[in-house]
């Protein structure tokens, strides 16, 4: 992995960072590169409520905020920014206003690398809208000042349309931190965490490959 000055991660939901990016984040923070995580919402509309339920629609945001802070601590993120948008509404925000919010954060953080979702290839409307706002903000910068942008994509058609990921980070050394970050989002991940841990223990090759390698597409400006 290239040495970065500062990495800015922008995702819309608590736990978006955990699955496909937390190993990469941990590798940066452990090597002394500061990482800022800007999280647009608190996942207020999450549906996992447990059985019996541990949360209400009104208490869930408090729970997920705490989980986000815990995950950030586990990953060594010292600059966590909660931007105050509401889950499932990001795509309905004014695109220009949202992009200028992203511009302000980029200007403030001055990252050499931004990690976000690939607009159009990230399944959840909030993901696509978040990625689009970041791309728009970076596009508006003079070419020579732009940070690199690495995008996460996972829609069914992504490889067919944008090709193979050009950045593949081997993050096996940070697997424990990654699993701990996923576990920190207990309200969303408790159902799948135990199975993931079992699969990792059993050396399931597909699970190992997915867990130990994190894939990104460099956004072509």
């Amino acid at each position, binding site marked *: 992995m290239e040495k970065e000055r500062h990495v800015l991660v922008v995702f819309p939901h608590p736990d978006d960072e955990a699955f496909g990016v937390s190993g990469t984040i941990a590798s940066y923070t452990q090597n002394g590169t500061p990482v800022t995580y800007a999280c647009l919402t608190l996942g207020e509309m999450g*549906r*996992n*409520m447990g059985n019996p*339920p541990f949360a209400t629609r009104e208490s869930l945001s408090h729970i997920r905020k705490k989980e986000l802070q815990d995950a950030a601590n586990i990953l060594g993120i010292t600059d966590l920014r909660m931007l105050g948008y509401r889950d499932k509404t990001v795509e309905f925000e004014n695109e220009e206003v949202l992009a200028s919010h992203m511009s302000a954060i980029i200007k403030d953080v001055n990252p050499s690398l931004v990690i976000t979702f690939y607009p159009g290839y990230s399944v959840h409307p909030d993901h696509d809208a978040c990625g689009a706002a970041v791309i728009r903000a970076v596009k508006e910068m003079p070419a020579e000042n732009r940070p690199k942008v690495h995008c996460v994509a996972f829609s069914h058609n992504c490889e067919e349309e944008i090709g193979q990921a050009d950045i593949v980070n081997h993050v096996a050394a940070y697997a424990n931190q990654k699993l701990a970050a996923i576990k920190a989002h207990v309200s969303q991940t408790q159902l799948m965490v135990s199975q993931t841990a079992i699969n990792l223990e059993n050396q399931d090759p597909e699970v190992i490959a997915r867990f130990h390698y994190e894939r990104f597409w460099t956004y072509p400006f």
Partner: protein
Amino acid sequence: MEQVIIEQVQKEIDRLAKKDVYIHLETTNGAYASHFDKSFFSSGAYIRNALLQYEHGKITGKGPYRVGLKMNFGWVYAEGITHFEIDEKGRLLLAGHDFEGKLAVALQLSETPF
């Protein structure tokens, strides 16, 4: 939240009748439903802090329950309610959780905005 106690929920619905109340109503099947199952038709609806008055309301059914609120010129309705809570702010929170514990429907009433 606890499982619906019909008498208690009815009492709260009656208490809030003919008053200005803020409504949160949503139904959802999750943003990934169509990603994991292409044959699944994804739909949902959400309204938060609609201010209205209802003349009377009723919780009915054998569980999961249905709740209907009759307004001067219309209705508010939710189906699949399984759980309730009167939270620390005195708000009536009704929710329907599916067999995996996922929120499928929510209807909430409050005298102050959510």
